[in-house]
């Protein structure tokens, strides 16, 4: 059944190309749901208490140390369900767009899903790298084909940036192989390095790739431009799922691979990520373009997740998994809200907007609900996630905890500024039509999921925690190789 994770996206990506135009939208949704059903099935049958469920494990090209190792634990499963849940959601939120009936677009989304799924189940360094790179192609093409007219410079920047990061990671993966018999996850983890410096520089390669993708301050300058120039579906894929690859990579690869280097690398990374939390929030406050504003907001939110992961504490990492789910859902919702406005009015400049609440009460309600959820109010999963992350950061160093905690305040500032300037005040446009059923459905699914997880977070926490513990055991028990 696990192989369906690969087969289904490939099948739909190819078969959608020959579907009649009028059927593409529905077909895309069906394809997304099919993978979701498989993922849920995997979650229900997962019963290895915190362990890794390997579904393919064999040698591939032994002389080069290449293996075929694929498997998942609870953390992977959460990422898988996020991916396979968001893909139909993103397709659904584009239901009203012309884009949704575009075969190439839908095909690219499924290729993207293939890459993402591969990243989350790959347990071989080279395969991890391959899938990591595969995701770049569809997202690049989506943005290139369907993005804003002035997208070229931004996309080149995005491509170079992420590619440099990926190459650094590849170099590191090959570098570790020098200390291990094969590229298999277990072998790479067991590798010990000759000196702390080696571990540090090998880690730097991984860090560069992840820091760019997350993005962690100051590696973020590709992000606002790419987010604003990409079509909305591309932005949703980027912020909703793609950056989770990097956060997942930090948990699965970076922490267990280089325990030797952690003691000198942790604090600088946490500090950078925390700077990003505050920096992103402050920059977001005065942005005039809503999409750009939420791009910086997203940077602020994921900075907190990255910082929490680096504390390498069970609570914080468990919280980070919950927060990744939450952020994926909420980011898709917020960008959809921006898109709802842009589709109807062809602008997303706050200075042009105003008074929409009066004309579109349903939109006003759901956007408001999203605004609250995105500032992590209680009864939303964001609250539990931030609570656990901040608690972890706080016990790591109280000053960092307090500084990162200002996101509570600054988040309220930029979110409600954006909301109020667009929805309240004098009416500037006539005839703003209220939500289409597909848009409403997306908002409702997001809010309901987030609230359910906020009231009963144990559903995720209990599921994930054993796996987080076994990952962290790798971090602590790896022998620091005679240093």
């Amino acid at each position, binding site marked *: 059944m696990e192989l369906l994770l690969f087969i289904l996206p490939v099948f739909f990506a190819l078969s959608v190309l020959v579907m009649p135009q009028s059927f593409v939208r529905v077909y895309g949704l069906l394809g997304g749901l099919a993978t979701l059903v498989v993922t849920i099935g995997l979650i229900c049958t997962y019963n290895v208490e915190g362990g890794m469920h390997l579904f393919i494990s064999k040698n591939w090209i032994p002389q080069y140390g290449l293996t075929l190792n694929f498997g998942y634990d609870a953390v992977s499963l959460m990422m898988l369900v996020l991916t396979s849940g968001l893909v139909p959601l993103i397709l659904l939120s584009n239901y009203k767009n012309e884009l949704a009936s575009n075969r190439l677009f839908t095909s690219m989304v499924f290729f993207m899903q293939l890459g993402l799924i591969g990243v989350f189940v790959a347990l071989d360094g080279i395969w991890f790298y391959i899938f990591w790179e595969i995701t770049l192609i569809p997202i690049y093409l989506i943005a290139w084909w369907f993005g804003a007219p002035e997208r070229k410079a931004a996309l080149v920047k995005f491509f170079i940036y992420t590619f440099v990061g990926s190459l650094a990671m590849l170099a590191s993966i090959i570098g570790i192989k020098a200390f291990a018999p094969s590229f298999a996850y277990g072998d790479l983890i067991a590798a010990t390095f000759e000196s702390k410096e080696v571990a540090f520089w090998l880690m730097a390669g991984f860090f560069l790739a992840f820091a760019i993708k997350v993005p962690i301050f100051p590696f973020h300058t590709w992000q606002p431009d790419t987010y604003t120039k990409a079509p909305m579906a591309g932005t949703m894929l980027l912020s909703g799922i793609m950056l989770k690859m990097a956060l997942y990579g930090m948990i699965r690869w970076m922490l267990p691979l280089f325990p030797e280097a952690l003691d000198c690398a942790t604090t600088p990374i946490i500090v950078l990520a925390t700077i990003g939390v505050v920096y992103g929030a402050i920059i977001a406050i005065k942005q005039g373009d809503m999409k750009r504003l939420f791009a910086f907001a997203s940077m602020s939110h994921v900075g907190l997740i990255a910082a929490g992961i680096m504390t390498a504490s069970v609570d914080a990492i468990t919280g980070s998994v919950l927060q990744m789910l939450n952020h994926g859902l909420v980011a898709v919702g917020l960008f959809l809200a921006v898109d709802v406005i842009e589709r109807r009015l062809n602008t997303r400049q706050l200075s042009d907007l105003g008074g929409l609440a*009066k004309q579109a009460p349903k939109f006003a309600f759901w956007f408001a609900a999203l605004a609250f959820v995105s500032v992590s109010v209680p009864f939303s999963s964001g609250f539990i996630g931030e609570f656990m992350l901040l608690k972890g950061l706080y016990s790591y160093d109280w000053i960092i905890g307090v500084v990162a905690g200002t996101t509570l305040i600054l988040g309220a500032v930029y979110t409600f500024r954006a909301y109020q300037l667009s929805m309240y005040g004098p009416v500037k446009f006539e005839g703003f039509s209220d939500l289409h059923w597909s848009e409403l459905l997306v908002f409702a699914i997001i809010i309901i999921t987030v609230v359910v997880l906020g009231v009963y977070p144990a559903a995720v926490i209990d599921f994930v925690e054993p796996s987080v513990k076994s990952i962290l055991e790798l971090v602590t028990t790896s022998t620091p190789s005679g240093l």
Partner: protein
Amino acid sequence: MSVAQLLPIIIALPLLGAFINGTIGKKLSKMVVGAIATTVMAAAFGLALTAFFSVQHGNAVTVKLFTMLKTDSFSLNAGLLADNLSMWMTLIVTGVGTLIHLFSMGYMKHDAGYYKFFVYLNLFIFAMLILVLGSNYFMLFFGWEGVGICSYLLIGFWYQDFKNTLAARKAFIMNRIGDLGLLIGLFLILAKFGTLEYGELANAVLVDKISISEWMIFGITICLFIGATGKSAQIPLFTWLPDAMAGPTPVSALIHAATMVTAGIFLTVRSNYLFELPGADITQDIMLYIGLATSIVAAFIAMRQNDIKKVLAYSTVSQLGMLFVALGMGAYTAAMFHVTTHAFFKALLFLGSGSVIHAMSDEQDIRKMGGLRKKIPVTHFTFLIGTLAISGFPLLSGFYSKDEIIAHAFTHGTWLYGALMFSAALTAIYMFRLYFVTFFGTFRGTHEQEHHVHEGPASMTLPLIVLAILSVFGGLLNLPGIWLHGQAHWMTQLFERNVAGMNALPKHEGDSNLALMLMIVAGAMAILIMIVTYVVYGKKGSLPVADEQLKGWEKLSAKKLYFDEIYDVLFVRPVAWMSDKGSRYFEGAFLHRGVVGLGQAIGKTGDLVRKWQTGRTDSYILWMVFGIVGLVVYYLIYKN
């Protein structure tokens, strides 16, 4: 039904009301919507009464609903706790809440967002009940933020006016500053005790007496207090409360006078045993001074405000300040007593002002009122009772509750007594000024308004009358010892019975002669001020002048001591500046330019390298020869 079964129902009722009205309220008639919202409240109050009577003499009841999350280091439970403190707060919240719901049915009758208003009100009650009934700090925090959200929604209820939404945002952000403090307090408690459950915490402190460093206790208590300054509008986070008057008047009565703003006091009383530990005495002092400063500053500002609701808002801030003085002295019961009576008379005053505003066709400036005494007699009479109660007129509820705090202050230090009496005197002055200017003299509104002045429907007058009765007799809840031949007060006994920490407090035995003397002084002062203000504003009919003509202290008062302007310069503008310049220069010029520059540099290098790629074999061979020669030289020189 047992209390354990009652509690979840009490909480669920307002949520049910909000759900019904939120889903189908739009289609229902206004009458039905209001009736649903008010009925669930009344039912909740009834059940709360039952629960109160069964808990009153017994032990506290804890109900665990479900585990929200559990990790190795901590667990967070959705649980409820009924002891005399939480039940007392529940009674206030649901009781006063019911009356205000009833009032709103008449007050909001012509509003287009009628059903939405009741949804928000019910949701607020739900959040407030979680706050007071939760069995741990985590639940408290849930309610704490929940009431903040509802407060935001209700302040910005009339969002067509952008000013209102700004006030709402300000309230939300300022509250969040406090929330961050509280959250850190929770982290500290978790780090030290490993639990957030009140019961386990009290057990650790009072029974096991585990040793805690003074710094830790100071840290915990100061963080809790920072949280309280946000929600209970203390210096420096008080400026949102007067702005919050942008919301409909019943909201001001319910949230910004009777219930939500007392959450900070509830939090402190709930954690009283922490505040009594060594190390917390610094926090107590800070609390006392901040409370005192807030009390006087707010009373001073209220002196020259002319918006009927603004006066009451600053008055609320001032009273809350006084409550924190009480908490700073460790007079928890006195604080709870004053919270109770304050809920009665301040809700009464706010609803009264709402009735006045309703009668005056939405006019709020007292300079344009006058002579309303005869025109709206019920409102007038009940407002008078409210004014007398808050001013400390003898034998009314405010007289007893305020006097208890002042008596504590007298034993604490004469200067403190003087300062509190000063604050109380200011309170009496601005309240009687408000009353006389509004209800005495001649009518100063427009002709149209005069024609339209009318008393509200019964749904509005009935709550006024009930609250007026409570404001008069509320003092009986905790009559001072001299009235009871030295026996302990009813409320003191109530809170000592099953509220953790309260019975471990040192007993405060005031000298009854002294208490009597202080009462006479306070009562005489209130009467004297009433007479003087009557002469000035009632008889002579002098009117507040326009703000521009004010000089000296009057101008300072009218301009609210320039707090908003100072905060603007200190906080708002720097952040806006950073955001603006940061995105333009740091993000745009520095980082962006830097990356682009790097790219260009790489491009240039590429160009340079490309020039070598001539495509001519002979030049490649030439370079190869150079290379080989170079390598040979290198090995010859360095490796040997």
